[in-house]
């Protein structure tokens, strides 16, 4: 790989760090684990994205944001998003930084591993004394929970494995 291509590829990854889910703007698509691969060929860049949920209405907006952001990189002539289901997005693709950012935003991250129990701790006070009020929430990926310690309702990302 020549240095020019490497430089563009690095710039693309950096740019993708600024692209967020419109419904969870605290975390980038990279931290969310949605970027599978970046391929640079000349000035053409293809970004392979693995969606969290198949019917997530945010994916079209994310696609547009990615194309806009990557197209603005010097040396990039054409940016294209390809949605892939292989690899399948799973909860363990969220990075540690991503998990922390979700918590700060008020969303409890999912378990790290498929075999882990789904313990929902409050993102505000850290209490484990919570109830799952609705397995389904305002978006496909989230559930609604309630903290009995600090009396706050909050959301939790559904485990997907």
């Amino acid at each position, binding site marked *: 790989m020549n240095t020019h291509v490497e430089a563009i590829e690095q710039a693309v990854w950096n740019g993708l760090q600024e692209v967020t889910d419109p419904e969870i703007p605290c975390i980038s698509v990279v931290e969310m684990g949605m970027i599978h691969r970046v391929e640079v060929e000349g000035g053409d860049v293809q970004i392979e994205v693995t969606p969290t*949920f*198949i*019917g997530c209405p945010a994916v079209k907006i994310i696609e547009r944001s990615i194309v806009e952001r990557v197209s603005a990189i010097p040396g990039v002539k054409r940016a294209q998003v390809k949605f892939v289901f292989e690899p399948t997005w799973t909860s363990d693709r969220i990075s540690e930084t991503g998990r922390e950012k979700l918590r700060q935003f008020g969303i409890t991250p999912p378990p790290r591993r498929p075999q882990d129990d789904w313990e929902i701790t409050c993102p505000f006070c850290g209490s484990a004394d919570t109830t799952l009020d609705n397995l389904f929430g305002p978006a*496909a990926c989230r559930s609604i929970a309630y903290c009995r310690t600090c009396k706050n309702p909050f959301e939790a990302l559904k485990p*997907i494995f």
Partner: protein
Amino acid sequence: MTGLQKVVDAGQAMANPAYKAALVELLYLLADDDFILGYRGSEWLGLAPHIEEDVSFSSISQDMMGHAVAFFDMLEALGEGKADDLAQLRQPEAFRNAILVERANGSGTYLENPQFDWAYTVVRFYLYSLFKQVRLESLANSSYLPLTQLARKMMPELKYHLHHWSVWMKQLATSTEEARKRLVAALQQAWSDLGDLFDLGPKAEEIVGHGLIEGSELLAQRWQERAKKSLEAYRLPWLGKPQPPELNGRAGQHTEELQQAVATLSEVYRLDPAANW
């Protein structure tokens, strides 16, 4: 289905006309089931028993619509036309969904005097989700690689749907006498429409022959084993092996209820295909 060579993408499928013809037929059936039942689910918005259920049910309907879109997109990639057109501009007789998913939720419409039947809805979504699980498990080994990947992606989402409807089944079954009575009546109603759910339509032989999915007898048998076990656990009656249907949706035979559904869901698109919100 082992031993058959994997078809990796639309281009490769299109190079083999017999394979493509079978694949397309299967995809319509898969797309239409989720599309029409997802639509029936969306008609409940604002009418569900309580607000939390409105949230859950809408989320499930949205997932199902998303699954339908993914199948329609696959058809588009195979040269069948625009996904939106496939969903909204086909005549009802071109639909391949099962009769069970097209039935109205009850009398009235969501706008006028909706006397929708919650027990029937719970039963119908539960029985369908149970079958969808059986079907996806088979599709996860399909000879068409994009379908294999999509099925695997759908399975964890479906798990939440199935869980939701199981909870309702159990709650209604262990609730008051009236709830139970209504649930049993709903089971009988749904049962009379089960005949074509497992069917793979006029091209069944080709679909199975090309390793796209396993045969309908096998799928039906697996569904029956699971349905029987869970209904027993809810202490609900087993109504026997589903009988062959009077109408076969997989062959394009449908009720007036589907005609109405298609007319309603495509109304805006027919008026203005570029309409957006």
